[in-house]
């Protein structure tokens, strides 16, 4: 196929990608530093969101109710992971994947396609917004703190498993988002798919078992929301079985491969029909 596949890379090629990534992020940070006020806005937005979710949890549990059999502390682990993922979105996914539509509209995608580098790599890593980092730290902190309070005794295996699950959930979220952004090649005018995605993902704030059976199936099978927050939370709490771990990694790998296939499919149409 047209783009040089990652599999065909040798050590020298990997080094080139690594150096490119450093230049990408170096220039992105330099460019973001021109807008310091963003940091304040992002931190305030995060604080507001987090406070809202905490309030809701507190109201529910304060009245002695439970969410799908989850204790307050366990539910807080889910919220922490959600916050972490939201931070990853703000830092990497939204700035990069959100720009794909613009690149298609303005035709600057042409420049990307003419570079001797994997176009999906370029489009997915080109920029970085450091303003989501506080959210990542807060989310991670909340998840760990709540897990300890919930009585989790993290051993090496649990930590590794949790890290792997978190990585999987980031990969799943990325792939989902990338596939949606890819559709802009056909629809050019953005129908704000990413907003739809964000709305669906906010379901991941709370444990999946808190939802009615129908939604639960939807969030597990159709939109893998369950794999994004609930499953990693179970892993951190030391409640996940090896089967879920494997399944999560499998879903992540499959979504990543699907996103690559889908991108190539879209490119085939772009390069045979664009003007």
């Amino acid at each position, binding site marked *: 196929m*047209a*783009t*040089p596949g990652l599999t065909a890379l040798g050590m*020298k090629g990997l080094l*080139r990608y690594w*150096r*490119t990534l*450093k*230049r*990408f992020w*170096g*220039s992105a940070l*330099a*460019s973001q530093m*021109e807008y310091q006020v963003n940091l304040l806005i992002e931190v305030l937005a995060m604080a507001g969101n987090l406070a809202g979710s905490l309030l809701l949890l507190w109201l529910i549990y304060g009245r002695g109710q439970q969410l799908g059999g989850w204790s307050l502390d366990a539910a807080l682990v889910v919220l922490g992971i959600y916050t972490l993922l939201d931070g990853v979105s703000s830092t990497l996914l939204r700035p990069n994947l959100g720009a794909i539509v613009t690149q298609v509209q*303005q*035709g*600057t995608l*042409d*420049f990307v*396609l*003419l*570079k*001797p*580098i994997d176009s999906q790599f*370029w489009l997915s890593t080109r920029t970085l917004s450091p303003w989501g980092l506080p959210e990542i730290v807060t989310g991670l902190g909340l998840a760990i703190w709540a897990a300890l309070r919930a009585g989790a005794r993290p051993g090496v295996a649990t930590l590794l498993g949790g890290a792997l699950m978190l990585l999987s959930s980031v990969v799943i979220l990325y792939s989902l988002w990338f596939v949606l952004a890819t559709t802009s090649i056909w629809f050019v005018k953005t129908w704000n798919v990413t907003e739809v995605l964000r709305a669906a993902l906010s379901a991941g704030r709370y444990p999946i078992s808190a939802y009615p059976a129908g939604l639960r199936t939807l969030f597990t099978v159709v939109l893998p929301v369950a794999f994004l927050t609930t499953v990693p939370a179970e892993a951190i709490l030391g409640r996940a079985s090896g089967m879920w771990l494997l399944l999560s990694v499998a879903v992540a790998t499959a979504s990543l491969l699907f996103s690559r296939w889908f991108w190539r499919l879209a490119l085939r149409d772009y*390069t*045979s*029909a*664009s*003007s």
Partner: protein
Amino acid sequence: MAIIRAETLSKTYRVADKQPGLAGTLRHFVQRRHRDVAAVKGVSFTIEAGEMVGFLGPNGAGKTTTLKMLSGLIHPSGGMAEVAGHLPQRRQADFLRQITLVMGQKQQLIWDLPPLDSLRVNAAVYGLDDATARRRIAELADMLELGEELTRPVRKLSLGQRMKAELLAALLHQPAVLFLDEPTLGLDINAQARVRAFLADYNRRHGATVLLTSHYLADITALCPRVLLIHEGGLFHDGSLRELSSRLAPCRLVRLELEEPRPAAAFVSYGEVEACDGRDVRLLVERERLTEVVARLLADLEVRDLEVSDPPIEELIGRLFRQGAVT
């Protein structure tokens, strides 16, 4: 050996055929109708390594489509192209390292940062080590007369400076084949001249092959001994510029500013009326009749101002095809 080869290269776009208005939109939604539009129809030519070739034609003639096929951005619907020994549409890394495409109306430099940051990104993408990148940037910046502009945010550069920086970014990997689509678009005369001088210099130094489209005939006259003229997707002329201009410009453009407005019909005996807007009249007059016609105009009418020039290439080409002089 030919470095660029096009054989009956064709491109047909499928466009949606939609009537205006709500009814048209609804009908389009229910039953899509498509129309095939042939943008490029069986164009064949070869270009030798080191040649500078001008690509002419009115808007929508298929110039950009052809450049996009040659650079691998779009697949041909028929025929084939071969550039630097590769099929462009496969976009293999080895091919991409040998070509570049500059588009006057699109930019790749990062808006908020100085050009140098974008150049460093490109250097990494093309796998250039720091020393090589520095040396090439210095050489190209010198040729382009770029200095402190490279460390100023792109958004603070003038259009001319930005275009020069774009050229630098596009040439950092020392491509052997340059596809330039309107590289002087919107630049003032001085900036145009500098870009032209640079391209000639670059071609001399590196023996690069250049295929250039431009609205400004001056770009082509200054740079390209050979010209390809396409119209409505077909190749109509492939040869020297002199042959083309003798075919295209046995005419001169006479602009008149009159004391009193006159109807267009009043000028038919002098030449071909290009435009007549009351007091301002533009006439195309054959070269050999020029002195006679100008003398008659001055004698017959109250003329406030008169100016004789070469008609713009667009008008010449337009006239050529209206007359059906070339088939």
